[in-house]
């Protein structure tokens, strides 16, 4: 199986959140993202730090993740970004 690069993994994680009505708990997100728990934690930390996703607490006091405007913008611009990187050999 082809190894996904960092941008692709980020895209996949954001896409999973977006497809689930922009709200998902960390455990199912880990399962759907096909990452080891350690790599998932690293990516989640990066996404929160870059403000692509936001963490919230629901009424039952459970953690959930949601996309920020920047996260949606990433999904919109993903093809442009990867095309740009390929085209310029970066």
């Amino acid at each position, binding site marked *: 199986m082809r190894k996904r690069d960092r941008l692709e993994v980020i895209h996949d994680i954001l896409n999973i959140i977006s497809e689930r009505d922009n709200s998902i708990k960390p455990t199912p997100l880990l399962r759907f993202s096909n990452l080891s728990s350690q790599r998932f934690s690293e990516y989640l930390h990066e996404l929160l730090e870059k403000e692509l996703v936001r963490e919230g607490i629901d009424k039952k006091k459970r953690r959930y993740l949601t996309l920020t405007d920047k996260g949606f913008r990433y999904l919109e611009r993903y093809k442009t970004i990867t095309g740009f990187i390929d085209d310029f*050999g970066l």
Partner: protein
Amino acid sequence: MPPMMPFHMHNSFVSGIELLYTLIIVIICFMIYFLTKEIYDLTKHKGIKHFRSAFFFFGLAYISSFLVYLFMFSTWTMDMMGPRRSLWMISLVPLSYFSTLAIMNLAYSTAWKDIDENKFIWLAVTVSFIVSLVVLIMHAPMILFLFQVFLLILILISVFRKRSKKMLQMRIMYLLLAAFWIMNLLAIGSSRFLREDVRLIIQASSIIIFSILLYKVIKWVR
């Protein structure tokens, strides 16, 4: 035989062309830098980061090269003959520093997976600083020229080691960009001896290469 232009008018005309050329290149460089801001902010991709830095530093290098030209030849500074040489030597420092950083960043933008970023930044800043210092202390801009030709040869070797055809095309483009910068450097250094039409060809070619890159950037980020 057509009547010759008086020296001061000729000088103003050439300075005007130099200014226009600098403005066009600087605008293109900063446009590339600002147009790629969003995709960098979204990804923090190291290749995009150093690609942007390269054009930012090229912009500053072209501004510096115009200052060098101004202190060397322009009638604008003719009145201050005394400090002119010192000003010219001092203006070579930012020129050396920014242009070396620009070429190194451009090369690194395509090779960031192979070299640790912190090591590269340390190396690029140190090398650029030392080159600038040597140029200033030894009063020898030729050192800058020779060093950048050496850098270009290193890039050339790395370009032809890559097998991907698409990446090869783009790297040749970067190589041309760096090569025309170095020719531009030579054109400034030997302005007294270089024919005006040769200078114009170098300037027009640089503008074409920068414009092609800008066009490609706009095509993606619009």
